[in-house]
């Protein structure tokens, strides 16, 4: 009975996003008996430094780290899967879990130090702030002006349809929780979003589940442009490859900033260890220097140049687009705009 509503909420979700298995899994044995089970949307290679740092501090704790999509993570926690910590880039889904009483309260000096916008009810804690960016292929955009706003981007795509046909990548919002979050927040914040979606829709866009693949394709020259890529990954790859083939742009009319958040599921057994990892992550989230970590801190040095409302707010409004009716309406509109038949 308790989950009757969840079934309704998730029925459409489940239909749109078919069940996914755990994408990756690794076990970090510790010296003791205790095992901290972490379910996360963050790729292993990105998150491994954090896990190793945690184990250096708490060697007695073994870590069982599983990677899943944000939707899969949400569904798993919803269904009562036993994990001690859930880390997700989909703020809205995390928020809903907390709101619906599926998260456990946690309070420590480290979480108390977080700004108000980075936590909610001591249930959900943000530890990174990551902007949505546009990734361009230098080679394929040669001779074209760099777009600064969505309006610029729309003009660019309209003026050079041949260069961009089939070479635009963006999230499949039906699949990706993060893509859906970015899209709905943009819908709310700027008129240009739908016009841009329609323009992209006419150019046979490639739809992706994940940022990593988009960046790979831009880098390989298969894509000229990837829209709404998670900034942290993009900068990470760019720094590594540094071939100058990629350019990162932040739209100046409006930029979404996503908070990567952690919750302790109500089913957690190793609450103390989960709290310790949250403490470590939030302390890193509040660091002043960027340091040698793959994910950016909460207060980024260039946060002041971002236009818009700052990071997406943790609040009940996040649940608006999760409402099945709203979701259906949004996806219908999105599909209409994105999947146009070629004239």
């Amino acid at each position, binding site marked *: *009975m*308790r989950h*009757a*509503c969840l079934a*309704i909420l998730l029925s459409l979700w489940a239909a749109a996003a078919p069940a996914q298995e755990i994408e990756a899994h690794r076990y970090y044995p510790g010296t003791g008996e205790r095992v901290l089970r972490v379910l996360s949307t963050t790729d292993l290679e990105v998150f491994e430094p954090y896990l190793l740092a945690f184990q250096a501090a708490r060697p007695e704790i073994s870590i069982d780290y599983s990677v899943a999509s944000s939707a899969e993570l949400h569904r798993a926690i919803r269904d009562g899967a036993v994990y001690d910590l859930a880390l997700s880039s989909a703020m809205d889904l995390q928020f809903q879990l907390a*709101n*619906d*009483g599926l998260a456990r309260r946690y309070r420590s000096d480290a979480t108390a130090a977080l700004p108000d916008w980075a936590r*909610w*009810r001591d249930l959900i804690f943000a530890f990174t702030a990551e902007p949505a960016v546009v990734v361009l292929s230098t080679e394929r955009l040669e001779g074209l002006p760099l777009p600064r706003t969505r309006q610029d981007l729309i003009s660019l795509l309209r003026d050079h349809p041949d260069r961009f046909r089939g070479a635009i990548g963006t999230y499949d919002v039906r699949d990706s929780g993060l893509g859906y979050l970015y899209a709905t927040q943009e819908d*709310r914040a700027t008129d240009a979003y739908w016009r841009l979606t329609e323009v992209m829709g006419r150019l046979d866009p490639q739809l992706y589940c994940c940022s990593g693949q988009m960046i790979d394709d831009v880098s390989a020259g298969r894509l000229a442009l990837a829209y709404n890529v998670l900034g942290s990954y993009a900068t990470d790859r760019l720094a590594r490859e540094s071939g100058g083939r990629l350019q990162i742009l932040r739209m100046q009319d409006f930029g979404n900033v996503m908070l990567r958040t952690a919750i302790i599921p109500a089913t957690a057994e190793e609450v103390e260890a989960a709290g310790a990892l949250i403490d470590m992550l939030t302390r890193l989230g509040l660091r002043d220097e960027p340091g040698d970590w793959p994910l950016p801190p909460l207060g980024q040095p260039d946060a002041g140049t971002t236009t818009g409302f700052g990071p997406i*707010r943790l*609040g*009940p*409004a*996040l*649940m*608006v*687009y999760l*409402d*099945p*009716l*709203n979701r259906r*309406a949004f996806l219908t509109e999105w599909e209409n705009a994105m999947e146009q038949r070629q004239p």
Partner: protein
Amino acid sequence: MTGTGSIGRRLTLLLAGVAALLSVLSWGMVTMLARQAAERTQDNVLAASVTAIAETLRSEQGEVRLELPYSAFSMLGAIGEDRVFYTVTAGDRTLTGYADLPVPDGRGGPGRIVFATGTYRGEAIRIASVTRVVLAGTSPVPVTVTVAQTRDGVGTIAADLSQLAAILAVAFFVVAVGLSAIAARTSLRPLKELTAAVSRRGPSDLRPLRRAAPSELAPLMGALNRLMDRLNLSLRRSEDFIAEAAHRVRTPLATVRTQAEIALRSVTDDADKQRLRQMIRAVDESSRSAGQLLDHATVAFRADDLPRAPVDLADLAARTVAALEPTAAMKEIRLQLDAVPAQVSGDPVLLDSALRNVLDNAIKYSPEDTVVHLQVMSIAHEARIAVTDQGPGLGEGPARALTERFRRGSNTEGIVGSGLGLTIAEEVLRAHGGRLDLGAGERGKGTCVTLVLPSS
């Protein structure tokens, strides 16, 4: 005197008690009002939220459609970090949201928002609900929009305000206690002033109190003044009585003396003469005592309202010496006067009385054939008359005690006296702002009595 506690302290405690009561009351009221205000705010936000959602209700192709406006939920974050639940039902069918969320009964008709308080998933919630009729296809369907929110934010706001109110109430109480103490002291000040005015008074000052006093003290002052009046009257009456008695005694004594002197001249027997002389001396002493009693009464009477005139002590001394010359001559005592002019301001009658009593004493206690020396001086701001005799001195015991009424020296046996002489002199001098100094004469022999007066 037994104390029954301090009025000031009692007043302070009473006022502080009232302040404490008011502080607690005001804190309780602010807490209650803060809670109510916070709850009303939450109701208003919930009402706005359900209204915003209900406004999106519409019918499309025979189906009820709606979309949750972003603002309908974002506004719910205004109260605090509260959990939000919602449900939309069309008839008996749940369109969206939390199907098991309790919906308040008693639909208040279309468009009216119904509020309720309940529990959902173990937390107290406030529920707002509104019903709108939507025409779906052919039949009208009542669609109910319900939004619920936990009440933590309301509790936090109310607790914050309550804490603030508590701090203010304590501050108010502390200030009120301070002010109470000040108020108590201020209202008791007239009483203290009255007390001071009464205790400042000299021993013989029985004038009525004439001062502005609060109406509460007027009866006390009236009673005090009446008491002093009566006291004054009875004192005056007894002085009058003494004066009258002395006067009445003196006149027949004078007659007795005259007759005794005539008899002395006519008798020839030595034994009779001796007896008559003793009689005359006794009559003289009685007459002197009566005179002194009269003097004393006069001093007591005149000192209250002292008439002042310029007096030269040299003149005064000369006159007094002349008046007592015969008495001195009877004992073969020489009165020697050294005088310089010394002006004072005072009552000539009283000053004469004072000097006469001192000189009379000196003559009385001096052995026969000696000298009583009077010296009038003017030193700095003081005028003095020093009367020095060659008598037996003041004897043992404190010199000051000799100025008490009816007190006589320890070595006066065999000499008739009333013990009033120095008392009279002392009272006169004190009434004039002066004093009487008692000491030994030159080379420790005899007595030196000095009348000291402020010069004018």
